[in-house]
């Protein structure tokens, strides 16, 4: 009994090692002096006195600007996705209407369209609408890909709300819109939070659109900024890794705090639905 217990613990530790190691390695590399980066035997521990690398990451690159732009895109994508998705999610769950099946099908279809495929036609549309080189353009393009997922997850949660609660509100004379906003939304708040996190991450991580639609350096997002270092040699490796950590770590830590809700939301709505 004790033997299987220990075996399981060792296996779990190995699993967590695999999961966490690459980010740990990014961190170690960011805190390794240049001369040791290229030594034949790698150092497995960070050199904490190298912490000034993080200051360099901000002074030698436009990291601060990139992060602000990514934040704008991520928050904008989240707000627009949730705003657009709530009512259709309710309609898919509760109302009967013509084209309901078609809407469900169209939402699912978007999961099959690669972003890279729509880059060319969207570029054309954005040129006509003067949305090239704007963060708003990125928000609009990202939302087209997050709205279906968010709608689907919210629909799953609304399915779980007992309709008796709504009917009581209807007797009181609430309109459908009032019911959705005042009765249903508070009841699905955890799933709403999960959906928001998913949309936020999509906006924070997105690369193809940001790479193709933005040519103005002051509007670059962090994903594109970081990508510009891949395979490039003029910026010191530890500075690049420091930029990587500053871009990655807040997202990962934030996710660890909210993952309980995300998992619950994904599994109740997105996956089972």
């Amino acid at each position, binding site marked *: 009994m004790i033997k299987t217990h220990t075996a399981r613990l060792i296996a779990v530790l190995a699993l967590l090692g695999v999961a966490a190691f690459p980010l740990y390695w990014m961190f170690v590399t960011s805190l390794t002096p240049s001369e040791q980066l290229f030594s034949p035997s790698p150092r497995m521990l960070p050199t904490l006195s190298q912490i000034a690398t993080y200051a360099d990451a901000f002074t030698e690159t436009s990291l601060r600007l990139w992060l602000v732009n990514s934040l704008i895109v991520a928050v904008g994508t989240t707000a627009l996705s949730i705003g657009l998705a709530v009512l259709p999610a309710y*309609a898919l769950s509760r109302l009967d209407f013509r084209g309901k099946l078609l809407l469900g099908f169209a*939402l699912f279809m978007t999961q099959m369209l690669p972003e890279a*495929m729509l880059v060319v*036609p969207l570029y054309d549309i954005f040129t006509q609408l003067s949305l090239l080189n704007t963060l708003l353009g990125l928000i609009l393009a990202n939302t087209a890909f997050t709205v279906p997922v968010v709608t689907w997850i919210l629909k799953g949660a609304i399915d779980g709300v007992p309709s008796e609660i709504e009917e009581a509100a209807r007797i009181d004379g609430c309109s459908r819109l009032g019911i959705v906003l005042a009765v249903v939304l508070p009841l699905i708040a955890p799933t709403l939070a999960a959906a928001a996190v998913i949309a936020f991450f999509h906006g924070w991580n997105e690369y193809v659109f940001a790479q193709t639609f933005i040519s103005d350096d002051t509007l670059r997002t962090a994903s594109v900024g970081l990508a510009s270092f891949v395979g490039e040699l003029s910026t010191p490796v530890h500075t690049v890794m420091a930029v990587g950590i500053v871009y990655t770590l807040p997202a990962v830590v934030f996710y660890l705090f909210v993952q309980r809700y995300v998992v619950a939301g994904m599994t109740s709505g997105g996956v089972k639905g």
Partner: protein
Amino acid sequence: MMSRTANQPKARPEAVPRAAPLDHGRWVPAFFVAPVALYLLVFQGYPLIQEFLLSVTSTSLLDPTKHAFVGFENYRELLLDSEFHQVLRVTAIYTVVCVLASIGLGLLAALLLDGAFPGRGLARALVTIPWAAPPVAAALIFVWMFNAQYGLFSHLAQFLGLSSGGTNWLDEPSYALPAILITTIWQIFPFSSVVILAALQGVPSELREAAVIDGADRLSVFRAVVWPTIRPSVALLTLLITVWSLRRFDVIWLMTQGGPLGETNTLVIDLYRRAFVYLDLGRAAAVGIVGLVIAILVTFAYFWLSLRAEKASGKR
């Protein structure tokens, strides 16, 4: 409102029709659905139609407003193009390995994290780290780890005596796809494990205990009790990971751009290269449409199979 629900459950059936006129009838669904329908039409439907129209023309990125209608010539040439055959082969290998490995590893992780042990909550959270890391960051760190002279994989291979060092996996035709696969699987297996872990909560523990008391070994408990419960989730994971693998761009593009010698050139990478490296928008669009058709076929196969499985289990 809430308390009334509890007090007057019997008033429900008659009350609903009386409240209905407040809905302004059938306009409610239209009002609820129209914004999102319009949004998707503008940013997904219209671009998709544009992409299809591009695929039957010869159009260069240098002069994108000038189209020459060529019918299905782009498709015909793709079918005859041996480089495109390689693209299909690479995409198939990439997708199948992604699905099998990430579900296998995810299942293993889920079974490990399902039991009771100290720090289980923390372990369940930590295992999701790769899923939370941005793909661009994952590409960056793995490129560094695959570096020929200073990368960890190179040190490891030398330490194990597998190579004399100096090999950059990403430059070697036979190692580049495995390197991309390692990176991708590291990123997505936590998703499988989280979904399977949630499904495992639905396994009735009395049933499992009963099977153990009956003297069933672990494998037969898994096959008889655990697998039937998680099978629908695994099926859905198969579909999702297939479709996501068919559209994954950032990790592959940043690590190899489809090279060396096209060994990591998946459909989406090929589409992007044809558009922005070879400036051939028409052929690129045709590649995109082929990829889309494959994704749709896979999805229909999934729904057909799961419908059949549902019927089969219903008869029992």
